[in-house]
């Protein structure tokens, strides 16, 4: 089920009222409801893949319990391998099998040999990269004794499948989210109101910004070789805001939705394009994933407390894996490698000697450059875009449908101004303004903007494919 669907508009109020109606029956009754609602939410897309979530949850639940019962390092390690094997095995099969087969075939072709391509017709289960990482963190935390396993299977399964963040995050840690399935929930007006406002702004980011910009971006990316450097530059900037609006919008809806049930999810985006360094960018972009990779890949590899070369290797490896997590395509690997390269470069070259505003522009420009690989269907296509931009190929600016271009630009500017205010003048935020008339008017204006200028026919969220 999609957040921006009619089904969800019916589903959410029903679950909301049932949830609070059950508050007197206790936490367990509410957890049963949340589990049922979450499985229904996911099963609406394809009920067959519920078995994957169910199996993954069971494995990690029992692995966690077993691990806590033994101090024997080898046994604990074997148990961890079971969890890693099952979760990463699912990912490898559903997400990466065809990529590996294609790369294998291409490698043989490159060396002059020819082997038949054995692709499988596999559907990628929505959100598999998110919930497998969430359950993996549970097992790893127990392995490192940072967390005690839960005996409550219901709460654990509800934690793994919690519908607001099931399909596209934020990727929650058990240490933060799991205890919330045990505590008593209290309805709080301020919390619910804030949740609804976050959802409203999230919808704005998705349907008014991301989906509007996507129409122009998709149009240009259909044949980038025919467009000028200026058009491709504008398209790249548009895509930077499209993916931000799409993913940060989804995260906001998820966080706001969880708030309606008195759950606190972690912040996933903090105005990333105001970052003045790449380190800071990754502290603002997809925070739940970047901290996951930091905690479970970068630090176990040795982090920065090793030699300079080793530390650089750790950074590069972490970002390449992160790129690969995003998708089974070389474009994502190059995107990850570029960000690894940026971080290494920054670490050794930039010593506070560049003005902050200049750094902000540099970080944004280089991030946009990397986004070209993220958006292009192949590395070759990405190079076409970049070479045309860098060589100043062609002339003029293609507008496509001028209405779409204009309203895409307006939506982008509204998002930018809002982010600027939130970053530098938080007291001026209109939907959180102390004066009720201002708050009320802002909410109405956003609702009207979404109705009048939102795109309602491009329903898929980009990050669902990861």
């Amino acid at each position, binding site marked *: 089920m999609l957040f921006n669907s009619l089904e969800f508009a019916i589903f959410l109020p029903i679950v909301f009222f049932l949830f609070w109606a059950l508050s007197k029956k206790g936490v367990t009754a509410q957890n049963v409801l949340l589990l049922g609602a979450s499985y229904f939410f996911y099963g609406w897309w394809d009920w067959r893949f519920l078995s994957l979530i169910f199996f993954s949850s069971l494995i990690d639940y029992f692995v966690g319990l077993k691990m806590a019962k033994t101090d024997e390092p080898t046994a604990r390690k074997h148990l961890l391998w079971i969890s890693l094997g099952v979760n990463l095995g699912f990912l490898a099969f559903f997400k990466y099998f065809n990529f590996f087969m294609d790369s294998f075939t291409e490698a043989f072709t490159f060396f002059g040999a020819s082997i038949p391509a054995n692709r499988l017709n596999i559907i990628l289960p929505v959100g598999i990269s998110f919930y497998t990482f969430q359950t993996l963190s549970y097992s790893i935390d127990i392995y490192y004794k940072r967390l005690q396993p839960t005996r409550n299977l219901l709460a654990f399964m509800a934690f793994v499948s919690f519908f607001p963040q099931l399909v596209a995050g934020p990727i929650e840690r058990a240490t933060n989210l799991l205890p919330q399935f045990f505590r008593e929930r209290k309805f709080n007006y301020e919390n619910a109101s804030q949740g609804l406002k976050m959802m409203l702004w999230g919808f704005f980011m998705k349907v008014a910004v991301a989906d509007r910009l996507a129409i122009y971006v998709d149009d240009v990316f259909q044949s980038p070789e025919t467009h000028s450097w200026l058009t491709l530059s504008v398209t790249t900037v548009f895509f930077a805001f499209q993916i931000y609006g799409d993913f940060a919008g989804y995260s906001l809806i998820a966080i706001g939705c969880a708030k309606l049930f008195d759950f606190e999810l972690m912040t996933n985006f903090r105005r990333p394009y105001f970052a003045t360094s790449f380190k800071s960018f990754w502290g603002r972009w997809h925070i739940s994933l970047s901290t996951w990779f930091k905690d479970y890949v970068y630090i176990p590899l040795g982090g920065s407390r090793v030699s300079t070369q080793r530390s650089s290797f750790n950074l590069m490896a972490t970002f390449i894996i992160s790129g690969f997590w995003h998708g089974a395509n070389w474009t994502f690997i190059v995107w990850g490698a570029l960000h690894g390269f940026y971080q290494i470069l920054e670490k050794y070259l930039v010593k506070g000697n560049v003005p902050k505003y200049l750094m902000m522009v540099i970080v944004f420009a280089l991030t946009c450059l990397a986004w070209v690989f993220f958006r292009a269907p192949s590395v070759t296509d990405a190079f076409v875009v970049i070479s045309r931009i860098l060589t100043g190929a062609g002339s003029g600016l293609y507008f496509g449908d001028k209405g779409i271009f204009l*309203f895409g630009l307006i939506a982008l500017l509204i998002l930018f101004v809002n982010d600027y205010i939130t970053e530098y003048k938080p007291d001026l935020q209109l939907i959180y303004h102390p004066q009720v008339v201002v708050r009320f008017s802002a909410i*109405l204006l956003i609702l009207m903007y979404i109705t009048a200028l939102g795109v309602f026919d491009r329903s898929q969220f980009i990050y669902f494919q990861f």
Partner: protein
Amino acid sequence: MKKLLIKIGIVCVAFVVLDLVVGSFLLNLLEKSPDGRYYKTRYSLEEAQEDIVILGSSRAEGNYSPAVMEESLGMEVWNAGRGGQGLPFWAAMNSGILARYTPDVVIINVENDFLKESVDDQSFERAAGILRPFYNRHNAVKNFVDMVSDKEKLLLKSNLYAFNSSFYYMLRPYLFEGIDGRVEDKGWKPLKGSLAGKDIPERVINEDDQEVLDPEAIMMFENLVSELQDKGSKVVLTLSPDYNKKVVTTPTLEYLKSVEGVYVLDFSNDEYFTKNPEFYTDPIHLNKEGAMEYSRKLAQELKPILNGSKTKKNLAVWNEIR
């Protein structure tokens, strides 16, 4: 909880009121639109009484001058063509027009591959983008927009949503008179520019794979034609010329040979047009001069059809005559 529900209620009521007020304002703007695409759509659906109506995409909108045709034929002509639109829009407009009156002749400017393109969600959405403001006024439009998605019925309860994304093209004629076509041009949008001096290599189209035709497009086209025939309108399919392009055959043309009861006027290999760069603004659109010349020639070809001296022919027979 009560406080939250009350506040949600207040926001909802305020939204409904604003939706009504702003929606009415926009409707007023639409009705008073001096020219442009919304004026044209409204006129087509609500006022047109012309004897001849032209349907099609940008090539219909730019290639057919009603004034030139009227002068030659002595009949009233209205160009209802719309750039960027395909079969779904033509079908909806056609149903909307026929619900009110029956033109003597409907000319549909088709492309030699128009039944190859699938009638996908995007072509429906593009058409709905123009038609939504007319949702509550015309059953034909309503039936069509409801087909776009199951959400439309509910979303169109909002007056504001009916104008979703249409503001730019609705407001533009108020700021720049005639930018989307002048009222006196009767739906024609003449184009400027010329291909003179530009080197455009010849293209030869020769495809014969019938399998590639889209069944949904065929069905929609057949419904459109039979709807017109049932009402008693003569149906003329026209193929405009492209610069330096020769069309041997295509699956669409092969299919059209089997369509009974329509007249087909095929100019795609008329070298008077296809070899004259002065007539084109780009390889597929005639400029003002080219469109006027084309309209003159088309009118000559239409005369025997209008006076009944030419019996209904399918494409194969028509080509033999030519």
